[in-house]
């Protein structure tokens, strides 16, 4: 594949992968959410960020520089395995 036809190839690939996602069952979707530590049945679940409510803005949305782009999200901080240990100390 050449660089010039990569745009057409990406379009074909995305359209085909869309079909794979359309066929996903409720169980598969729930399992994927659970794998990510989300509970879509919970009110305000992170799974619906950007759908039912806007994703909170980040510093990288306002600055061109990489400043803050790699900072952990609050969800990642909460999911840190050692967070509970440090709280107990």
């Amino acid at each position, binding site marked *: *594949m050449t*660089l*010039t036809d*990569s*745009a057409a*190839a*990406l379009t*074909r*690939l*995305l*359209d*085909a*992968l*869309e079909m*794979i*996602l*359309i*066929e*996903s069952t*409720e169980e*598969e*979707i*729930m*399992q*994927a*959410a659970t*794998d*990510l530590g*989300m509970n*879509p049945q919970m009110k305000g679940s*992170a*799974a*619906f*960020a*950007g*759908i*039912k*409510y*806007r*994703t909170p803005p*980040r510093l*990288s949305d306002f600055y061109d520089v990489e400043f803050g782009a790699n900072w952990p*999200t609050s*969800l990642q901080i909460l999911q840190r395995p050692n967070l509970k240990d440090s709280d107990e100390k």
Partner: protein
Amino acid sequence: MPELKPFYGGLVLLPAETALALKLVTETDLLRLKAIARLHARGLPADVSWDDLLQEAFARVISGSRRKPEGVAMVVFLSGVMRSLRSEHWRRAQLESRDSHALRRLRDVQDSQELEPTDPTPDPERSMIAWQEMARINRLFADDPVALQIVLGLAEGLSPDEIRKMSGICKTDYDSARRRMRRALLREGLTCEKK
């Protein structure tokens, strides 16, 4: 004329939530569409995010500017709207890129006072972005050689039968790989990460 926004319980709702309140889609449909929106947002200009695609698709359906044909599932229809929005954004980006290229050329011509032949090759920036996105998708399935064969075949525009024949994959292995791909795409699509 002031812009009308949908109200529900005194709060301004996003188009996707309005569609949920109107029972056009279920919560599971919303998550399925989120994964699809993330997919179609791959390689789009930086000023367009996956949630822009998703909310715009819902807004067009709710406003009636896009009408769902009878017998077509809402998720399939909304996916099609997002696909067409993706093409619109690509065209816009391409035009903007050409405009700035043409402006630069005009300045060059004014400086040198002579015309040069136009460059007939496709937009190199878009090609490069597409190439990078293909590499990112390949990395999703890096430890799954069967899935990688399928991705390659799909990018070439081959049918499932052609991919199986070309790669020597039996139907069972093909279907299993497709399920693994779906799980990986859903995990990628439902994540909270921006990109």
